[in-house]
C-alpha cells in the first residue's frame, strides 16, 4: 500500500512541478537556516559534563560589600584569601581553587619557537572531580599540593609538540623560570564552554595545555592571565599585594553529592563569611551564592545574545516556511477533490486518504530535507569563515546534525500537512461525484 501511495504521491508532485519546487524550497530554506544557527547554538549552550554537572557547585563570597555589588551579585571570582581558606577547611566532597595561567614553555630544542601555553593552576582533586581523561600517568596527590610540588599535567597537543606524542611522564619541562616534572598527559579534553572557570577565563577557545599545582604556581608568582577585578580598593603593588588584596581573580568549584552536603556547605559558607564579619574584614552580613553548574552556566550567559537572536529569527523563518507549505499543500490536495471523491466512492477509507496524502507530504519533507542538508552544509561553511575563531571551531557538521536536519524537515512538513490532510479526508464523496 505504502508503495502505491508513494507512486501516487510522486505522480502528483510531478504534475505541479512549480508548486512542488516551491514547497521543497521553502522547507529547505527554513530547515537550513534553523540548523545552521543551531550548530553554533548547540555547541555554545552545551553542558560539557552533563553526567555530573548537578553535583558540581560554584561558591561565591562577597568581598566588596553591598555598595559595590554589580546587579546585586557578588563577583564571580573569589579573593585569594577566601579561596585558600575554603581549600584549607576542605568541606566539600572534592574541591579546587583555580585560576588561568599562560606560562612560557621553554624547550631544549632551539629550533622550536618559544611559545606560551594556556592552562590553569588547580588543586589535585580537580582531575577526579571533573573526570578529566588521562592518556599517560595521572594528576598529583594532596601531599603534592601541600608540599607545593613542582609537578605538571600537560595536554595532548603540548605533549605532541614537545615529545612527539610519546609517554613523557617523569620528564621535566621549564615553564617561565622553573622546571616541573610531568606527572600526567591528558587525553583529548576540550570542554566548551570552559565550564570550570567561567568567572575569570574565556568560555571558548583553545584547550588548556598546562595544569600546575595551585600552591606551586603561587610560589612562583605566576600571575593570572584572566580577569582580575577589584571592588573599590586597589591592591598594593607586586604579587604579594595581589594575594593580600580584596580583588576577585580565583575561581572555585566544589563537588557535593547529596542535598544534605549542599545544605551543610551552604551554611558553612555563611558561617565563614560571618566569621570574617566578626574579624572585621567584612563590614556586611554574609551574602553568598552556591549555584550548581547548570544554573551557573545559565547565569553566566555563555551563549552570546547574537547567537540567541540568530536562532530565534531562523526559527521564525522556519515557521513562515511552514505556513507557506500549509497553504500550498492545501491548494494541491483540494485541487484533487474529484480524485479523492472517486477513491472514497470506490471504498477507500478516510484513513487511507490520510495515509496517501501523508506519504505525499513526507516525500516533500524528504526532498526539502535533502535541499536543507545541502544548504546547511553551505551555511556552516560560510559561518566558519565569518565567525570569530574560537566560535567558528565549534560550528561543525556531524552525523547527528545530518539526521536532525532530515528529521526536522520531515516533521515540519508533516506538521504543515496535518490541516490539508484533514481537509482532504473530509471531502464529501457525493458532492464530488455530482459536480464532475
Amino acid at each position, binding site marked *: 500500500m505504502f508503495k502505491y501511495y508513494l507512486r501516487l504521491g510522486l505522480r502528483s508532485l510531478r504534475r505541479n512541478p*512549480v*508548486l512542488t519546487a*516551491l514547497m521543497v524550497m*521553502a522547507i529547505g*530554506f*527554513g530547515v537550513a*537556516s534553523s540548523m545552521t*544557527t543551531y550548530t553554533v547554538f548547540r555547541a555554545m549552550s552545551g553542558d560539557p559534563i552533563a553526567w555530573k554537572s548537578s553535583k558540581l557547585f560554584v561558591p561565591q563570597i562577597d568581598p566588596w560589600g553591598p555598595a559595590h555589588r554589580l546587579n546585586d551579585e557578588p563577583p564571580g571570582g573569589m579573593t585569594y584569601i577566601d579561596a585558600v581558606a575554603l581549600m584549607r577547611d576542605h568541606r566539600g566532597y572534592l574541591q579546587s581553587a583555580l585560576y588561568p595561567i*599562560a*606560562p*612560557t614553555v621553554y624547550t631544549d630544542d632551539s629550533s622550536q*619557537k*618559544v*611559545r*606560551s601555553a594556556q592552562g590553569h593552576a588547580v588543586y589535585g582533586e580537580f582531575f577526579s572531580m571533573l573526570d578529566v581523561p588521562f592518556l599517560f600517568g595521572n594528576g598529583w596527590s594532596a601531599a603534592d599540593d601541600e608540599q607545593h610540588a613542582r609537578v605538571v599535567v600537560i595536554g595532548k*597537543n603540548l605533549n605532541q*609538540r614537545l615529545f612527539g606524542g610519546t609517554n613523557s611522564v617523569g620528564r621535566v619541562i621549564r615553564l*617561565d*623560570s622553573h622546571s616541573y616534572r610531568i606527572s600526567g598527559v591528558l587525553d583529548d579534553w576540550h570542554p566548551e564552554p570552559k565550564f570550570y572557570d567561567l568567572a575569570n577565563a574565556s568560555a571558548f*577557545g*583553545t584547550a588548556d595545555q598546562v595544569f600546575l599545582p595551585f600552591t606551586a604556581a603561587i610560589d612562583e608568582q605566576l*600571575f593570572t592571565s584572566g580577569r582580575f577585578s577589584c571592588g*573599590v*580598593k*586597589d*591592591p*598594593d*603593588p*607586586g*604579587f*604579594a*599585594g*595581589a594575594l593580600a588584596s580584596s580583588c576577585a581573580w580565583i575561581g572555585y568549584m566544589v563537588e557535593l553529592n547529596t542535598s544534605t552536603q549542599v545544605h551543610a556547605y551552604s551554611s558553612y559558607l555563611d558561617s565563614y563569611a560571618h566569621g570574617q564579619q566578626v574579624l572585621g574584614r567584612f563590614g556586611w552580613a554574609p551574602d553568598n551564592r552556591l549555584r550548581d553548574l547548570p544554573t551557573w552556566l545559565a547565569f553566566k550567559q555563555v551563549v552570546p*545574545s*547574537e547567537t*540567541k*537572536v*540568530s536562532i*530565534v*529569527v*531562523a526559527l*521564525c*523563518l522556519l515557521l*513562515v516556511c511552514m*505556513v*507557506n507549505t*500549509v*497553504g*500550498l499543500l*492545501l*491548494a*494541491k490536495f483540494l*485541487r484533487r477533490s474529484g480524485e479523492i471523491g472517486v477513491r472514497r466512492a470506490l471504498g477507500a477509507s478516510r484513513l487511507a486518504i490520510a495515509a496517501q496524502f501523508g506519504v505525499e507530504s513526507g516525500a516533500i519533507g524528504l526532498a526539502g530535507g535533502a535541499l536543507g542538508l545541502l544548504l546547511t552544509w553551505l551555511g556552516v561553511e560560510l*559561518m566558519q569563515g*565569518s*565567525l*570569530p*575563531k574560537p566560535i567558528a571551531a565549534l560550528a561543525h557538521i556531524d552525523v547527528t546534525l545530518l539526521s536532525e536536519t532530515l528529521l526536522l524537515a520531515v516533521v515540519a512538513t508533516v506538521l504543515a500537512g496535518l*490541516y490539508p490532510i484533514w*481537509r482532504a479526508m473530509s471531502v464529501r464523496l457525493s458532492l464530488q461525484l455530482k459536480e464532475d
Partner: protein
Amino acid sequence: MSLHPILSALRRHKAGTILIALQIALTLAIVCNALFIIRARFEHMARTTGIDESDLLRVESTRTGIDSDTDAGKAALNASIRADLVALRQLPDVADAYETNSLPLSNNLWSDGYSFAPGLPPAVPTGLYNADEHALAILGVRLVAGRNFRSDEIVGHGQLGTFQPAVIIVSKHLADSLFPHGDALGKQVYFINATAPSTIIGVVEHLQTSLVDSSTDGWAWNSTLLPLRLVDPSRYYVVRAKPGRLAAAMQSVPAALYAQDPLRVIPDGAGDDDVGVQSFAQIRAAAYQGDRTLAILMGVISIMLLAVTGAGIAGLSSFWVGQRRRQIGVRRALGATSRDIARYFLIENALISAAGIAVGIVLAFEFNRWLMGKFELTQLSPAYVLVGVVMLLLLSQGAALAPALRAARIAPVEAIRSS
C-alpha cells in the same frame, strides 16, 4: 468596481486567504526586526576610535622569567623596553613606536574611576591607556586643549597598584563628564585610592575605550592617557609604519623584537587563539566580527523570507486562477475586459495583503518587545515598519502580477469548456 464579489469569493476559500495573510503578517514582523537589528549592528560598527587607523600595527610581546617585583627585575624590564623601542624606531619601515597596555578595540580593558577628593567614591569611570610623549602623534589623536606629555614626565609602573600620576591627558568626552562647563584643563582629579591628585594637562578630541561590547556603553568615550611605562612581562608595542610600508613592517617589527630577545613570546596564531602581530585593520575586523556575522545572517534570512513569501503568494494565486478558469471565462463572456480580470486579482491580493500587514504591524512591535525583554535590543522605530510595509506591498503585488496577467488572458470560450 465593487469589493463585494471579491470578498464573497475570499470567504469561499477562507483557509487559503488566512494562510497568505498570516504569512505576510509574520514576514513583515520578522523582516522589520531583522532590518532593525542590521541597522543597529552597522551603527555599532561605524563608531570611530578617534585614532588614525591606517599604517598602524600592534605587537603583543611577553617575556617571562624576570621577577617584576624586585628592583633588579624592574630595572631589567625598563631597560629591555627602552632597547626594544630604540630598535623599532630605527627600522626603515617604521615611523615611530611606543609601549602600552592596551589599544582601542583590543578588548583588553584597564579601567579606573575618578573622584574630586581623595577617599570619595568614584564619580566617573574611565578606560586607561599607558602612553609616552610619542603616543599622541603615533595614534594620530588631536589635542584640542593643553599640551602633550614631556619625556621627563614618563615613569615606570607595574600592572598592579594605585594610579596617581601627576599629569594626565583625557578625552574630550571624559573632560566634559568631569567638568561640564568645559574648563577641565588644569583641574585636579583623584583615581580610586589615590592620595595625590592628577592634573589634566591635555584634552584630546575623541578616543574610544578598548572594549567593543555593550558593557561599557555608558562610557565608551571616557579615555585617559597615563604618562606611564608599563613595567610588566606582557605588553603591547604600537607601531606606526611609514606610509605604504605596513605589510613590510609587520614582518620586520617582530623580527627586530626577536633579535633583541629570542626568549620572548610573540604568539603567531598557531596553537593558540592569539595573534601577536596585527594591523589595526585586522584588530578592527576581529573586534566587530560578531556584529558583521549577525548582520549578514539577518540579511540572508530576510532575503530567504521574502523569497519564500513571494513565491508562496505567486503559487497560491496561480492556483486560484487555475481553479477559477471557468468563472473567469463566464465573466469575460458577460463583457468583462481582460483589464477587469487582472484588476480583480490584484485587488483581491491587495485586500489579503492589507489584512496581513495590519496584523503584521502589531506583531512587529510585539516581537520587538519580546526581543527587547530577552536581549539587549532597543525599541523598534516605526520607520523600519514603514519600510517593511512598503516592501511587502510591492512584493505581494509583484508576486500576484504574473498570475493576474495570466488570468486576464483567459478567453471567454473557457466558460463552456469542461475542466
